[in-house]
């Protein structure tokens, strides 16, 4: 059949040796001419003359094959277009169904491609290696993708192994002239970063290790996109000073177009050498010591150095190099951990991003779900085609009878399918654009702003093309085969009834019901998970609360003045400052000593101003909140949550009890003056940890550099946000005032669940619609085909109830078969998402039962309509129909 369809083998065999054949032909003619008495030269000349243009002959011989094939395809396409134009409804439904499936698949694939598959736009990305480090410990070894600055530097010095080793970490800068300071996404990179990337600058120069030295002049590299947007690609900005975090920084170069850094999903418009952190954010200069692991590392080995060789060399050299990674303050255990550390090298062509860990599983789950939808869509269209083939049976039978080959007709029908499928591919690509942008918007409500280049790359176009062609084969081949296999004579007689009792169409509909049920159960499990997460008692009330970012080293008086300013604004109910807020992703913990015993587990600490509980709506269970009377340079009181009280003071009244902690000072004695309800820390799925609250204005801790202000307000939060920005700008010169909603921060904690749930629900609804259309279509066709039989039954005295049962029986049978298969499939698949569920098991009986019942109900309605129509069959009309 394939040979008939495409005829490639025969063509190859015939054309093979054509050259030689022509050559021999001319030789023979030469011999004939010689025999006639010509001179050898003349004989050859005449032979060539008689033959004509050899190249042209060869081309014509080839063309003899292709012209007819093309001709046939053109005919097929023309014919297909004509047929489709005659049934625009069918074409429209098919294209819409398929384009939705293709669009959804392409959108998810686009995201997977952007997040996980796409190589960095650098020369030979396949040679990049990502270096991670496993530091040994007494209890457990910790593998980390992040290394400390001194370690990255000693790795970069191994020039005989690597052309470059670059560390990078994302950072947000306040950049621009004083009258127009903007938060600019950027990165700190180590000196050899651009050598590792192997980039050639679009303008100026990129960093060298000399730029990454303490006290080196402050320099910056910008992306091509930033150059375009902020400077209109003006080459004169190279060498000009630019203000970053209040410091003049010289822009020395521009990276080539397309490169936005090595952290996938984050556009690092402005890049500074890591050593510059000491000047632009002095309070963070400890990042340059060995105690902080914060740089992700990509290395480019020298050509000829393999991954294994580099790994082995690093293992051998590390004992000599390891002192760089150790600080004098390290405990013996931590020092030993660094000294015995091992390096793991992995292919690093696709860069690095924490988004992968966060979204890999959700994206795979979504890919599976859209795959199911695609199958349902294919099944639907296959069903439509089967039904259509029945109505076209006469036409096909006539063509077969007139001598058309079966292969020829299958090809004709497949051409129709291909046309439909390719049209859907185009529309689907368009839909995918919207859908993937929407998905990125959802991703961006997570803990990180996400920026992807979502333009259709050649890889995505190839994906769509393959998907469309595969789809056309899946939904088109079986119906085409079946349509041409039918006994011709039946078709000519107009006996259209039998085909529907064939096995194919009912099987397709049952499969649809099964796939749909699997999808809906998945959606149901995720909806329930999201609902459970939302109804977690988080211990605070996020509605009506704004957060103002005031990160940076600031005097304590700044916060007091800022709070005073905020409380004077209209609509503000309460304002507070704290080192961190629930679900912010940040945290601070310390050792505490109770009754002379230092506790092994460190409780969480939060430094808060007196109105914090009121602002966040946290309930005070016992005792009192901090007040203005808690003054003095050192903290003397603390408030604990219920969990802390239970764990450490379960046998006595916690109020009035004492414990000691350092809170950034020499150890202080703290008296518990109040107990508050538990508040979730950073994970909605985990219980609140034991927590200690200390008075903000009486402690000095690192976390204060990351403080936020909180404001509870009534009325329009948007208007208040503007008012806050204006009111605080005077006190925060050089920094744009960022105001956020606390509820957005809470939402960001469930971004994965929301991503999957929204999409699964949407897909589930579409799948339900498709499956019920499929069922309805099947039964409606069936009723039409059996109208004669039904007419006879009615004429013989069948009651409407009997007729309804006749039709329903088939529908119900299919649905039950589909449901059984679907439940089994869902049970098998749902175990794979167990880790993503919350508050229910993957076999949650409620979800399984509810969803099955829902599907059954919809299916009953879908079968009910054709069944009712069957009762209206007029026996006189239907029996005489022929």
């Amino acid at each position: 059949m394939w040979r008939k369809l495409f005829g490639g083998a025969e063509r190859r065999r015939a054309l093979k040796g054509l050259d030689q054949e022509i050559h021999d032909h001319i030789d023979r003619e030469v011999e004939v001419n010689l025999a006639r008495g010509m001179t050898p030269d003349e004989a050859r000349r005449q032979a060539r003359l008689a033959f004509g243009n050899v190249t042209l002959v060869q081309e014509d011989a080839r063309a003899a094959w292709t012209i007819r094939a093309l001709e046939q395809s053109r005919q097929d396409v023309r014919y297909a277009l004509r047929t489709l134009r005659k049934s625009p409804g069918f074409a429209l439904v098919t294209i819409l169904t398929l384009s939705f499936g293709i669009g959804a698949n392409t959108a998810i694939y686009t995201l997977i491609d952007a997040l996980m598959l796409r190589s960095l736009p650098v020369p030979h990305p396949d040679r990049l290696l990502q270096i991670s480090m496993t530091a040994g410990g007494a209890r457990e070894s910790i593998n980390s993708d992040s290394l400390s600055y001194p370690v990255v530097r000693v790795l970069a010095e191994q020039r005989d192994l690597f052309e470059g080793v670059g560390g990078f970490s994302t950072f947000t800068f306040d950049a621009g002239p004083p009258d127009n300071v903007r938060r600019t996404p950027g990165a700190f990179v180590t000196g050899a970063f651009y050598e590792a990337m192997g980039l050639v600058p679009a303008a100026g120069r990129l960093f060298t290790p000399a730029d990454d030295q303490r006290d080196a002049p402050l320099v910056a590299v910008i992306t091509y996109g930033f150059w375009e947007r902020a400077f209109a690609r003006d080459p004169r900005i190279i060498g000009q000073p630019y203000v970053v975090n209040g410091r003049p920084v010289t822009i020395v170069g521009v990276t080539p177009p397309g490169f936005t850094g090595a952290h996938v999903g984050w556009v690092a418009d402005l890049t500074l050498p890591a050593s510059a952190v000491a000047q632009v954010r002095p309070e963070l200069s400890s990042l340059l010591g060995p105690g902080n692991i914060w740089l992700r590392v990509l290395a480019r080995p020298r050509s000829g150095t393999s991954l294994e060789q580099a790994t082995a060399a690093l293992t051998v050299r590390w004992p000599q190099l390891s002192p760089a990674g150790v600080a004098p303050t390290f405990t013996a255990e931590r020092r030993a951990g660094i000294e015995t550390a091992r390096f793991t090298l992995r292919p690093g062509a696709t860069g690095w991003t924490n988004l992968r860990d966060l979204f890999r599983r959700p994206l795979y789950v979504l890919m599976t779900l859209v795959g199911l939808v695609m199958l349902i869509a294919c099944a639907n269209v296959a069903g439509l085609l089967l039904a259509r083939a029945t109505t076209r049976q006469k036409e096909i039978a006539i063509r077969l009878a007139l001598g058309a080959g079966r292969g020829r007709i299958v090809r004709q029908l497949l051409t129709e399918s291909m046309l439909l499928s390719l049209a859907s591919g185009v529309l689907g690509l368009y839909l995918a654009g919207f859908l993937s942008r929407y998905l990125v918007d959802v991703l961006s409500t997570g803990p990180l702003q996400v920026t992807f280049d979502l333009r259709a790359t050649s890889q995505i176009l190839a994906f769509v093309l393959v998907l469309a062609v595969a789809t056309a084969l899946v939904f088109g081949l079986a119906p085409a085969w079946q349509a041409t296999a039918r006994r011709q004579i039946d078709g000519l007689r107009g006996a259209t009834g039998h085909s529907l009792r064939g096995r194919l169409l009912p099987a397709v509909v049952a499969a649809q019901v099964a796939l749909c049920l699997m999808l809906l159960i998945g959606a149901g499990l995720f909806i329930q998970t999201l609902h459970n997460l939302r109804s977690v008692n988080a211990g605070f009330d996020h509605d009506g609360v704004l957060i103002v970012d005031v990160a940076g080293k600031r005097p304590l008086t700044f916060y007091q003045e800022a709070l005073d300013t905020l409380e004077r604004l209209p609509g503000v109910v309460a304002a507070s400052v704290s080192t961190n807020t629930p679900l912010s992703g940040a945290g601070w913990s310390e050792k505490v000593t109770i009754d002379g015993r230092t506790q092994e587990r460190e409780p969480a600490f939060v430094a808060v101003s007196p109105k914090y509980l009121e602002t966040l709506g946290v309930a005070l269970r016992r005792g009192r909140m901090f007040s203005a009377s808690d003054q003095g340079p050192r903290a003397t009181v603390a408030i604990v949550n219920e969990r802390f009280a239970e764990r450490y003071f379960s046998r006595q009244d916690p109020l009035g009890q004492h414990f000691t902690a350092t809170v950034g000072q020499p150890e202080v004695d703290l008296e518990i003056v109040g107990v508050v309800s538990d508040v979730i820390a950073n994970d909605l799925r985990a219980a609140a940890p034991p927590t200690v609250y200390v008075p903000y204005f009486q402690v000095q801790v690192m976390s204060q550099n990351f403080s936020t202000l909180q404001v509870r307000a009534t009325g329009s939060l948007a208007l208040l946000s503007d008012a806050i920005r204006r009111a605080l700008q005077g006190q925060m010169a050089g920094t744009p005032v960022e105001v956020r909603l606390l509820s957005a921060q809470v939402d960001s904690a469930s971004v994965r669940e929301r991503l999957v749930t929204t999409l699964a629900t949407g897909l589930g609804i579409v799948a339900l619609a498709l499956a019920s259309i499929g069922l309805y279509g099947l039964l409606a066709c069936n009723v039409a085909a059996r109208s004669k039989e039904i007419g006879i039954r009615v004429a013989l005295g069948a009651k409407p109830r009997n007729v309804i049962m006749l039709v329903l029986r088939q529908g119900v049978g299919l649905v039950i078969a589909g449901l059984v298969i679907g439940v089994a499939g869902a049970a098998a698949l749902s175990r794979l998402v167990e880790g993503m569920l919350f508050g229910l098991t993957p076999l949650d009986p409620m979800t399984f039962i509810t969803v099955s019942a829902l599907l059954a109900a919809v299916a009953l309605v879908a079968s009910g309509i054709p069944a009712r129509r069957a009762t209206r069959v007029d026996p006189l009309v239907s029996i005489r129909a022929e």
Partner: protein
Amino acid sequence: MSTRQGRAAQRKSEEERLALLQGTLDLLILRTLRLGPAHGHAIVKAIESGSDDVLLVEQGSLYPALHRLIERGWITFDDGTSENNRRAKFYRLTAKGRKQLDIETSRWDRLAGAIARILRPAAQE
């Protein structure tokens, strides 16, 4: 010039020979192969000699025509060895081609008859 005259002495002069009518080459190939398998050169020679050297075949145009016929399934070919031990493709008629030859022959007869009637109307009576 001398060879040309010599050649003309053996064969009909160029002026006397006729170029093939469009589309008749296919028919002649089918007819020739009816007698048995033949390679390309032999087919040309058979057509030329069969027409007492009246028909002039541009030898090269034979090959596209052969491929056209294979593609339509009217002829097929076997790889074999020719008289002087050269490898050659031997073309032969298929069953479909045999049927087609009958159709084409009767079509040609009707065409030739019709044209003859127009050109010599007197001959009818």
